[in-house]
């Protein structure tokens, strides 16, 4: 008999087994990038494997970030990134990259300022 408390908390499958050992995604996706199931993804006809169905279900109701997908699937971030990138390449998911405010990534200053003002007023409404 297996007691609840003795159940392993982690997956018995090696994390990168679901990506067939690949650790490099087809597409770099930020932690906070928002992921949405496309109509093609939601139709369910083109999904390969259980993980893809789980991801489409997660992203069907409301936008989810890459970090949320990883957390809710209980897989490491790198694994989620490979899975999501594959699905985006197949048109099953749409990925909305964050705007980016800092650093040397050449972010558009005016766009950044407008978004910051939106964030500020949103926080004040909380």
């Amino acid at each position: 008999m297996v007691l609840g408390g003795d159940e392993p908390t982690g997956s018995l499958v090696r994390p990168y087994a679901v990506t067939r050992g690949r650790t490099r995604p087809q597409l770099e996706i930020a932690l906070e990038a928002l992921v949405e199931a496309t109509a093609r993804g939601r139709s369910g006809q083109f999904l390969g494997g259980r993980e893809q169905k789980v991801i489409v279900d997660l992203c069907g109701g409301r936008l989810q970030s890459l970090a949320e997908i990883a957390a809710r699937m209980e897989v490491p971030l790198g694994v989620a990134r490979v899975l999501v990138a594959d699905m985006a390449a197949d048109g099953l998911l749409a990925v909305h990259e964050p705007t980016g405010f800092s650093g040397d990534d050449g972010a558009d200053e005016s766009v950044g300022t407008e978004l910051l003002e939106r964030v500020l007023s949103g926080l004040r409404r909380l």
Partner: protein
Amino acid sequence: MNSPADTSRVTSAKIVIAGGFGVGKTTLVGSVSEITPLTTEAIMTSASEGVDDNNLVPDKATTTVAMDFGRISIDQDLILYLFGTPGQTRFWFMWDELVRGAIGAIVLVDTRRLADCFSVIDFFEHRKLPYLVAVNCFDGKQLHELQDIRDALQVSQDVPLMYTDARNRESTKQVLIKLVEYVLSMRRTRTVGVG
């Protein structure tokens, strides 16, 4: 499905919450997040420097770094994420990803263990990421004068420094507002300086 009619404007932003172990990062995130804070894990293979092909070393030791995060829907098209960073600055690989594109950072400080945040502050200054220092008042006690803390941390007068109670939603909200106002004011100063 109930997707927004036009999703092209959909975007996200993030704020980094940093500080030593046990200082209250997850508590702070949870006080304003619309979801119960989630944990995501990144697997880091240790001793991987100079080794390009992981297959060559099948049983390399791995380290898991956990990050706690929460989410605030600012409006239909804009979601703000708060990422609590692992306290250990030896996981620099994680920090690079965390700070990339961030609005700024909140350094949460416990005055009993000020030294815990020295390396974090160094890192943000080096990366030119705007940050403020929030002193978490455990049990509502303000044990030190803010100026004393500023001197001890050696942060410039420009950097906002304030007390907070990480458990309190309103208090956390004020810290977040302060950070965004600070970032906006820095942008304006820069624009004036250039023009």
